């Protein structure tokens, strides 16, 4: 899990880092944590957002 600082409204850097992580990990999730932070989560097993959400219900 990686915290990426950002300028409000601009996720270009986080998107670029997420793409780099995707080169290594099969699944990468990205979500905003306030104006200045974007969090990226990579998993070693392939998964989908729907599967992650369903597993938590």
């Amino acid at each position: 899990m990686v915290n990426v600082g950002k300028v409000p409204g601009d996720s270009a850097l986080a998107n670029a880092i997420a793409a780099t992580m995707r080169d290594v990990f099969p699944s990468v999730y990205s979500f905003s944590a306030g104006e200045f932070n974007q969090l990226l989560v990579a998993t070693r097993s392939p998964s989908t957002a729907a599967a992650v959400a369903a597993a938590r219900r």
Partner: protein
Amino acid sequence: MAVEMSASRLLAPYFGDSLFIWANLIGLILIYLTAGYYLGGRVADHWPEPRLLYSLTLAAATIAVVPFVAKPIMSVAIEGIEQVSAGAFLGSFGVTVLLFSLPVTILGMVTPFAIRLSMKRVESAGNVSGGLYALSTIGSILGTFMPVFLLIPSIGTRDTMLLFAAVLAATSAAGRWLGAGPPLLILAALAIPQGQIKPSAGNIYEAESPYHYIEVVQQPDGSRELTLNEGWAVHSIYKPGQIMTGGYWDYFSLAPWFGSGRPPQQALVIGSAAGTVPGQLIHFDPDVHVDGVEIDPKVVEIGRRLFGMNEANLTVHVGDGRPFLMTTKNYYDLIAVDAFRQPYIPFYLATREFFQAADDHLTGD
């Protein structure tokens, strides 16, 4: 070099110490030296007087004034440009011009002047200029290593600049120009109380380390925030008796839910700072062992002293995150990266090679 190293520390509390700030600093200093070399050569040819050379070294000792006028100038600059997106770049540019143009240009005049005065015959030009350039470079080497490894960590930025200014003034005194008064006056300035490096509301602690200007601010509700350098980002937050912070740190404890949902047994936090993320991981999963990696030992010390970072199952390693990951024999089921160096995450913690190293040290899903 001593001025340049010290200047970076003066700028850091207000503008940070990113690559952009260093580029400003080094580039402008080189411009001033270029102007100084050119002027020094011309002046020396017109007035080849030793008294004038010693006047130059005395004038360059005005760097002693810089740390005293820097604080108000940088305070005004940071207020004026805080709404500009390239504010740190512009601010550091303007401040470097204002504070260092005159003394560094004068310092640049010294070497060509000394060559002119030492040159007796053109047949010895190579020997004289080579010897003086070697001497000048030895001075630069000392000016690089002494402030960084000895003086700034032990006596701080202001007094480091004062000591080097006193050396310049003493050079003039050795040349029998104005005697010992100026260097003694500069040394007497060492006795002036330092005061706060960067005055701000709620400041309960500040320090300079080889890596950062460090500040701890206590809010009216008793919570404490750790900021570094220019202070635009809060690196750790501590709310006594309260585990959730309301900030981005809280999300790291959700990481297992993207995989198996099982709590981690071994976790690694790169950029553990004063312990906010490790503290939360341990709170929600008391059986986890956390390795924290933090580059600045002073930040670790502050974490233990002011941020309650004293969990028994937290081991903090002082070092850089990537070399740690490349060399550790440990394996983890969660790796968290929370490293920030203005303006963004350090680039070498965001490469394919780094993420491959992370994958190599992960177990499970």
